[in-house]
């Protein structure tokens, strides 16, 4: 098999890799905000329960969570395993990344001085207005580097979908490596991930720059 055929074959799997990447971001970014708000809730029970879920999601390997989401329903209730593996894969990834994003959001929100809330109250802003108009825009700017970190990790984590037999790019690379007794597909995979992350880095850098309108 020539290098070109390898690249073409693996590019086919790249679509599935991209599907995991974009769908995970689509669901986990907003879900993370919801989790962060629950975590900071004044209601102690809500906050404690959310905190517990975050520790579970951050304290167990993503690979186990993938297995649990995909095969758990079958082993527990005898339910059918999903034919389209993208569904359980995205659910597992979105929940896991939401936990990380939630903590990043919380860090950002709590870094805003209390004085701003007091000032907003004096000026007659409601709590909702204060959060959406004053706090959130600052938070977004502050957390961008940490979010970029997670997004870059996500690109590489997509390779874990292989654990539940989802045929993404790295899986195809492994198949070729096996049938050809060659190490080359791993090099191609490495370059693919690097180029993917190079683009992610550029895009995130550009968004960060756009947000720096006060500097």
């Amino acid at each position, binding site marked *: 098999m020539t*290098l070109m055929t390898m690249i073409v074959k693996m590019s086919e799997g790249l679509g599935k890799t991209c599907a995991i990447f974009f769908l995970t971001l689509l669901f986990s970014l907003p879900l993370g905000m919801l989790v962060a708000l629950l975590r900071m809730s004044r209601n102690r029970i809500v906050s404690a329960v959310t905190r517990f879920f975050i520790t579970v999601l951050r304290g167990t390997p993503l690979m186990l969570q993938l297995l649990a989401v995909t*095969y758990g329903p*079958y082993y527990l209730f005898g*339910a*059918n*395993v*999903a*034919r389209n*593996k993208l569904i359980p894969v995205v659910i597992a990834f979105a929940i896991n990344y939401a936990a990380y994003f939630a903590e990043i959001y919380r860090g950002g929100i709590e870094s805003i001085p209390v004085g701003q809330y007091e000032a907003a109250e004096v000026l007659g802003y409601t709590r909702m207005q204060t959060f959406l108009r004053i706090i959130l825009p600052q938070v977004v700017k502050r957390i961008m580097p940490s979010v970029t970190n997670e997004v870059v990790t996500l690109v590489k984590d997509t390779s874990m979908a*292989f*654990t*539940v*037999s989802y*045929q993404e790019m790295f*899986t195809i690379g*492994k*198949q070729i*490596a*096996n*049938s*050809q*007794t*060659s*190490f*080359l597909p791993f*090099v*191609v995979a*490495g*370059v693919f991930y*690097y*180029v993917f992350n*190079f683009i992610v880095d550029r895009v995130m850098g550009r968004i960060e720059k756009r947000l720096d309108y006060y500097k």
Partner: protein
Amino acid sequence: MKKLIALALALVMVLALTACGGSAPAKTDAPAAEERTSFIMGIDPEYPPFSYLGDDGGYTGFDVEICQAACDYLGWEMEIFGVNWDEKLVQLDSMECDCVWSGMTILDSMKEAGYVISAPYYDNTQVLVVKEDSGIASSADLAGKLVAVQLGTSGEALLNGDLAELAASFGEVITCDSFLKCFTELAGNSVDAVFVDLPVAASYCAEHDGLRIIDESLGAEQYGIAFRSGDQALCDEIEGAVAALVENGTYAEIAAKYPDIVNNLLFLSE
């Protein structure tokens, strides 16, 4: 401009590694045979009945027991190393183990890549396993259906090689990282059949209800032991020890514990 430089660098990386990709694995400086006191056996820890985690938590299986007996015969200390099956040859090359001996199908590509392969000891046949009530009677009934296979197994190699036409008639071939996952997918109805080695299929179906092996052998292959290139002497010693075990009856004694595979063992049928 920066993008161009990055792209150029990436390209150089690919080319540099391409250059060494095709060459045979480097010769190793393994200790000479007479100094050898220990032997690291590379196994797939999830491949019953050849190699698996036994009830007592230790590794066991037909291959493991034979290797242990051979090492005892040679006076070597045996260690077991669980390889990642789809990267077994890389791990062999990087000296993590001295051989791969775990129901491994002999492929021409291994010999071409320079590995020393022992004489075959097992005649392997690939079969399809389906659900008992599925009504699938032959491989032709699987047109457009999903078939699971374990990555890195001979079944997967066959579907990419000799049986590529059959594989193309399937809806999709799903590769899993263990045979257990293949069967879980089958039981969970996310695939319609599992393509797997006959002994594995037989032992799994014996323990789990509701499964059926399609009576159609789809590719006969043989198992052997892989050593690093340049380890011919080591291969000869192991083969000699196994031959002695066959001679003194130990081999047949161990084989008797594994009724599923005993009929396919080449040394016993001679």
